[in-house]
């Protein structure tokens, strides 16, 4: 059985204040137009910016997911563990670099800030025969889990 575990603990942050503006835009759209407009924005970002992950999942499956998040999280930072086996890919996020940015500044996180990740990543993965379960463990601590497994054929 193949398995690989990667643990990361470097704290890095995105380009300047991006995460803060990102968060504030969610709040602005929700306040002025309702939650559906926030979800529409997430849909737009997914359709524009998730082609890379989709391509990796299509071509390499679980290994593609591992490749994508190994690269992305090594740049963005945070504290996490990635687990890859023959049948599963798991991200155990112990301290999300994105939420961490909000928690360490005066900026109040959007009430459903964590919702943007499943909105972006679930569809591009499930499209290719996988099942994704997302668990928001603690928004206040930036802790969550994404568990991907091959869909059972009935």
């Amino acid at each position, binding site marked *: 059985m193949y398995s690989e575990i990667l643990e990361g603990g470097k704290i*890095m942050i995105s380009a300047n*204040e991006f995460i*803060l503006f990102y968060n*504030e835009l969610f709040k602005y759209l929700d306040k002025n137009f309702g939650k559906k407009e926030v979800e529409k924005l997430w849909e*737009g*970002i997914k359709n524009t910016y998730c082609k890379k992950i989709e391509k990796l999942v299509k071509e390499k499956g679980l290994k593609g997911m591992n490749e994508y998040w190994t690269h992305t999280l090594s740049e963005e930072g945070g504290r996490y563990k990635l687990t890859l086996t023959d049948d599963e890919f798991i991200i155990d996020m112990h301290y999300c670099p994105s939420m961490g940015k909000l928690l360490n*500044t*005066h900026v109040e996180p959007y009430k459903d800030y964590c919702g943007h990740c499943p909105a972006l990543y679930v569809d591009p993965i499930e499209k290719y025969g996988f099942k994704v379960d997302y668990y928001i463990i603690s928004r206040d601590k930036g802790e969550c889990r994404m568990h991907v497994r091959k869909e059972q054929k009935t």
Partner: protein
Amino acid sequence: MDEYIYSQSVHKDFHGIMNYLIKYLRENHGEKHLESFFKEASAYIYKPLIERVKKNGLIEIKKHLERTFSMEDGKFDLDYEENKLVFNVKKCPAIWHMKDKKLEIDKEFCKISTEIVSAVVAKECGYYFSVEYDQENGKCIQKFWKEEK
């Protein structure tokens, strides 16, 4: 900005997403909301910096710009006096990152970043602001000043 921001490294791909958000807001909600959002968000996000400038003067904007642009390997000159700061950007890291990635840069990317965002910070701190920018070449000259009484 909160001090935490300056202790971190950068993930430049977010410039591309910021570029997308500008375009998205304009296309879906119009210029009025595009401008309104960035004005409101800037006044809130930069609140710690604004407070420091009110207390210590333009030196705080100088420090902020030096730190931010150095983190992203931007090229710039700064000419600073007590009530005047000229920030000469010779190579904007955001524009050049997007050019390297061959992204279509929104026509108002520089306008949003300078005329709106920097102008809000300046105004909140009690300073005048002007900018001349050359988005195509990723250059601009931003001026912050206070009128002598």
